C-alpha cells in the first residue's frame, strides 16, 4: 500500500490555489531564478562555491547564516503585513483577501519563520562571527560540523519556501497542537512541511550546540579562565547548555507526531489512547527554554555594548554570570505557564506561575547592572548603544506584562488573547531582534572592515521603536477588549477596526525601518572606503578588537595570552602585551563540500517524507551516510599558512 504510487501524494491540484498564492509561487521561483541567473551572468557561481559555500571559516559561515536569515526576515515580515491587512479588512465587515485557512497558513509560517529561520539563524550567525575571536581561538572546535549544521538549517529554509510553490503550509499555529495537527483534521501536506522543515533545522541546531559548547570549554586562549571570559561568551555558554538539553525534546516530539501522521500511530491523537496534552507539555518543555535560547545571547550582546560604549568595565560581572546561569536553570521549571487554562488545578498553576515570576529576579538584576555600567561612565551614543536604549525602553514593558501573564488567575483572562500576542512581540522584538541588530551593527566592522552608516542606522532604530509602539500598543488594548488571536474575521460591531488600522500604521513604520536598513547596508558597501573601520573602531575591550578588520581567516597570527577580564582594554592601557613570541605556521581547515551535499540530501529526504515518496528516502539517506563515511577517509583536511606570510 505504501508503494501505491511513485508520486506519493504529489498531485497537480496542489499547484493551483488562487491568485494570492500564485503571487507567492511567482515570488519564490522568480527570486530563486533571478539570483541564479545573476550568478551565472556575472560568472560568480564558481567563486561563490569556492569562497563561500564550501568554506569552513566560521566567519564566512556566520555571514551566510545572516544573509539567509535576513532574506527570511523579509519573508516573515511580508507575512506580517498580509495578516495585519487582512485583520484591518476583516474587522470592518469585509471578508478581506485571505480565507480562514490561508490566513492560518500565513501566521503559522510567520511564527515558524521568525523563530526558527530568522532568530535562530541570526543567533548562530553572530556566534560564528564573533565567538572564536572573543575566545582568542583560531576556529570553532568542529569546523566541518559547523558547515553541516548550517546546511541543515538551509535545508529547513528550502522546505519552508518550497511549501509556497508545491502544496501548502500548516494551518495550525506555530506549535501545531494536536489533535488539530493530526491527520484526522489536517490531512494535507502543510503540517508535514512545518514538521520536517523544523525537524531538519532543529538537528542542525543541536549539532551547533555541541560545537559551540566544546569551543567555549576547550578552545579558550591561554590565561582565559571561565571567570575571565567576556560576558557575551558566557551568555553563549548558558545558551548552548540550554539548547543541548531541550532540542532533543523537540526532535523526539516531532518524530512522534510524524509517526502519527505518516505511519498511523497514536501518540497524540484524541482517540486510541493518544494524549494531545502530552504533546503540549513536551513542546513547551522545549519551547519555553527556547525563548531563553534566543534572548540570552542578546543579553550578552547588550552587556558587551553597554560596557564598550560607556568606556567602563561591565558592572557586576559576577552577578551577571550568576544571573545568566540562574535563568538557564529556572527556564526548565516554567513550561506549564503556557497552559494554565488546561485545568491542572491551583497547586500546579501556582507553582509554575511563581517559578515564572522568579525569572524576573535575575533579569531585573541584569537591567540594574546595565544601568550602573552607564553610571559614572562616558556614554557614546553610536548606533549599537541606540539599539540598547531602544531595547531597554521596550523590553521593560514586555517584562511587566510577562509578570502579569504569569499570574494564573490573570492568565485565564488574557491567555490566547491579543494581549499575549502584544506581550511576546514586545519581548522578542524589543529583546531579541533589537539585540541581534545591535550585535550586527557592533560587530560587522570586524568582519567586513567598514562601519555601517551612522545616521541611516539611527533613523532605522527610530522607525523600529516608534513603529513597534504604534503597532503593538493597540494590540494590547485589543486584548483588554477581549479580542482573540489567530482570527481573520471579527464582528464589525466590536469596533476593533480603528485599532487594527493604527497598528497597521505601526507596521508600515517598522517597514520603513527595515527599508532604511537595506539602504544603509547598500550605501555602506558603496561608501566602504570612507566608512573604513580600523581594527578598533569602538574602543573595544575584548580580544576581537585586537586583530585587523576584516579579521583574517586564521583570526590570530599569534595566539593571545590573557591575564585579566577585558584583556584588550587592559593591554591598551599599559597592561601586559597580548601577543609575544615567534610566528608559527598555522593550520586552517580546507574547504569542503560535505556540508552542502548533506544539507541538500536532507532537504530531499524531507521533501520525500512530506509527499510520501518513500523510494526517495533510502537514496537520500545513503547519500548522507555515504558522504559522511567517505569524509572519515580524507586525511588532508587542513592546509598550512606559512609563518612567512603572517609577518608580511
Amino acid at each position, binding site marked *: 500500500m505504501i508503494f501505491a504510487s511513485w508520486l506519493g501524494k504529489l498531485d497537480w491540484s496542489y499547484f493551483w490555489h488562487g491568485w494570492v498564492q500564485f503571487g507567492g509561487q511567482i515570488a519564490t521561483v522568480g527570486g530563486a531564478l533571478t539570483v541564479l541567473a545573476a550568478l551565472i551572468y556575472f560568472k560568480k557561481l564558481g567563486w561563490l562555491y569556492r569562497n563561500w559555500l564550501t568554506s569552513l571559516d566560521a566567519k564566512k559561515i556566520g555571514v551566510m547564516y545572516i544573509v539567509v536569515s535576513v532574506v527570511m526576515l523579509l519573508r516573515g515580515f511580508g507575512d506580517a503585513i498580509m495578516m495585519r491587512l487582512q485583520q484591518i479588512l476583516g474587522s470592518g465587515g469585509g471578508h478581506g483577501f485571505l480565507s480562514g485557512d490561508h490566513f492560518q497558513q500565513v501566521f503559522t509560517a510567520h511564527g515558524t519563520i521568525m523563530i526558527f529561520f530568522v532568530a535562530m539563524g541570526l543567533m548562530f550567525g553572530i556566534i560564528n562571527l564573533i565567538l572564536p575571536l572573543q575566545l582568542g581561538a583560531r576556529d570553532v572546535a568542529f569546523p566541518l560540523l559547523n558547515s553541516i549544521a548550517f546546511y541543515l538549517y538551509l535545508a529547513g529554509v528550502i522546505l519552508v519556501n518550497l511549501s509556497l510553490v508545491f502544496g501548502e503550509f500548516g494551518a495550525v499555529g506555530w506549535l501545531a497542537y494536536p489533535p488539530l495537527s493530526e491527520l484526522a483534521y489536517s490531512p494535507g501536506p502543510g503540517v508535514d512541511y512545518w514538521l520536517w522543515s523544523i525537524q531538519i533545522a532543529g538537528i542542525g541546531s543541536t549539532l551547533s550546540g555541541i560545537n559551540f559548547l566544546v569551543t567555549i570549554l576547550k578552545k579558550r586562549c591561554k590565561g582565559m579562565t571561565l571567570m575571565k571570559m567576556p560576558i557575551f561568551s558566557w551568555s553563549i555558554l548558558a545558551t548552548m547548555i540550554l539548547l543541548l538539553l531541550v532540542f532533543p525534546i523537540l526532535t523526539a516530539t516531532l518524530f512522534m507526531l510524524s509517526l502519527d501522521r505518516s505511519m498511523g500511530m497514536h501518540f497524540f491523537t484524541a482517540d486510541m489512547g493518544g494524549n494531545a496534552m502530552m504533546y503540549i507539555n513536551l513542546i513547551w518543555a522545549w519551547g519555553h527554554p527556547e525563548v531563553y535560547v534566543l534572548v540570552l545571547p542578546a543579553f550578552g550582546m547588550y552587556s558587551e555594548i553597554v560596557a564598550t560604549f560607556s568606556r567602563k568595565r561591565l558592572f557586576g560581572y559576577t552577578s551577571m554570570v550568576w544571573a545568566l546561569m540562574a535563568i538557564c536553570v529556572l527556564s526548565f521549571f516554567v513550561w506549564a505557564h503556557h497552559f494554565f487554562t*488546561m*485545568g491542572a488545578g491551583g497547586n500546579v498553576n501556582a507553582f509554575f506561575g511563581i517559578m515564572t515570576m522568579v525569572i524576573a529576579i535575575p533579569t531585573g538584576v541584569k537591567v540594574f547592572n546595565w544601568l550602573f555600567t552607564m553610571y559614572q561612565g562616558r556614554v557614546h551614543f553610536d548606533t549599537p548603544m541606540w539599539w540598547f536604549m531602544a531595547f531597554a525602553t521596550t523590553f521593560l514593558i514586555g517584562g511587566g506584562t510577562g509578570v502579569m501573564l504569569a499570574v494564573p488567575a490573570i492568565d485565564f483572562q488574557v491567555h490566547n488573547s491579543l494581549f499575549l500576542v502584544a506581550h511576546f512581540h514586545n519581548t522578542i522584538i524589543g529583546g531579541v531582534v533589537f539585540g541581534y541588530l545591535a550585535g550586527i551593527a557592533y560587530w560587522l566592522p570586524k568582519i567586513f572592515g567598514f562601519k555601517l552608516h551612522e545616521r541611516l542606522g539611527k533613523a532605522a532604530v527610530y522607525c523600529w521603536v516608534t513603529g513597534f509602539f504604534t503597532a503593538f500598543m493597540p494590540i494590547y488594548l485589543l486584548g483588554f477588549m477581549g479580542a482573540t488571536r489567530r482570527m481573520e474575521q471579527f464582528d464589525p460591531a466590536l469596533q476593533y477596526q480603528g485599532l487594527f488600522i493604527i497598528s497597521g500604521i505601526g507596521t508600515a513604520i517598522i517597514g520603513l525601518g527595515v527599508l532604511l536598513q537595506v539602504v544603509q547596508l547598500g550605501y555602506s558597501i558603496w561608501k566602504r572606503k570612507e566608512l573604513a573601520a580600523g581594527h578598533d573602531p569602538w574602543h573595544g575591550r575584548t580580544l576581537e578588537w585586537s586583530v585587523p578588520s576584516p579579521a583574517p581567516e586564521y583570526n590570530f597570527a599569534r595566539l593571545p595570552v590573557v591575564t585579566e577580564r577585558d584583556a584588550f582594554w587592559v593591554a591598551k592601557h599599559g597592561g601586559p602585551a597580548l601577543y609575544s613570541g615567534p610566528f608559527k605556521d598555522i593550520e586552517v581547515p580546507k574547504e569542503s563540500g560535505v556540508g552542502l551535499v548533506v544539507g541538500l540530501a536532507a532537504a530531499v529526504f524531507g521533501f520525500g517524507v512530506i509527499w510520501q515518496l518513500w523510494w526517495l528516502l533510502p537514496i537520500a539517506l545513503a547519500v548522507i551516510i555515504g558522504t559522511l563515511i567517505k569524509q572519515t577517509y580524507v586525511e588532508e583536511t587542513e592546509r598550512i599558512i606559512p609563518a612567512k606570510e603572517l609577518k608580511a
Partner: protein
Amino acid sequence: MSMLDKLSRLKVPELSRRAFAAICALTALALLIALWLASGQHTFDLFQTRGQIANRERTLLIFSMLLAALVLVPVYYMLYTFAWRYKTGHDHKYSPNWDTDKKYETIWWGIPIAIITVLAAVTWVTSHSLDPYKPLNDDRQHLKVQVIALQYKWLFLYPDQEVASVNKLVIPNKWPIELDITSDAPMNSFWVPQLSGQIYAMPGMSTKLHLDAQQRGTFKGMSSNISGADFSKMNFTVESVGIEDFKTWVTNAKQGGHFTADSYTKLAKPGGAQPVTYHLHDKSIYDNAIMKYMGGHQ
C-alpha cells in the same frame, strides 16, 4: 564662569532632539488612540466585567499593573537620567574601573526578590481562590450546563431542565453556574471575558468552570484556541435574564424539536450554525461525546 558660558559650552545634544521626536511620536500615537476612543462606544471586556469571577480577576489585573508600574517607573527614570547625565561631553564623574559594589548589588537582588515575594503570595492565594474548578461561594444549587465545542459551533446542554441550545447560553442572573466542558473536535477554549476567564475544551476530557452574571445583559463568548479553518466564526452569546424569564425560556425551548443522539450526530458535522433550542431527550450525549475517544479499535 557665568551661567551663560556654562550653557553655551553644553552642545545641544543630539539626544534631546531625538527625545523630542520620540515624544512627538508617542503623542501622535496617543492622539490616534484618543480619536478612536472618541469615535464610538467601546467595551473593554476585561475591565467592564459583569460577573463575580471576572470582577475579581479584574482587581488582580489592576493590582499587577500597579505593581509593575511601581517597579518600572523608577527604572525608566534611572535609564534616561543615567543616559543623559553620563553622555560623553557632559560634565560628570568618570570611574572607568568601578565595577562592583556589594551594597548596591545586594539592593538590586533585594528589590526584585521583595516584589516577587509579594506577587508570589498573591499568586498562591488567587490560584486557589480563583481556580475554575472551585464552586462559587453560594448555598444555592448551581445550575448545571454541559458544553460541547464542535466544528464550528457550541452546544449547551441543560440536563436538569432538559434543554439543548446551540450558540446561545441563557443563564439566570446572579445565579451560580457550573459548566462541564468538552470538545468533540480539536481543542478549543471556552471564553466569556465579561463573566470569567477561559478554560480549554479538549476531546476525550472534561473541564469545569464556575461563573455567574451579576447583571442582566448579553455578553460575547468565543473559542480562543485555533481549531480549524472556520474557528473565528465560533461565536456565541450568553444571555443573563431574570429567574422568571429563565423559566419561560426553558418552557419555550422545550416546545422545540427533540434533541437525540441522531440530532447530535447531524449537528456535529463541520459547519456553522444559527442559535436554536431543542427539547433534550437523551441525557447521555455529553458523556458519550467524551467516551467515544476512550475506545480502541472498533
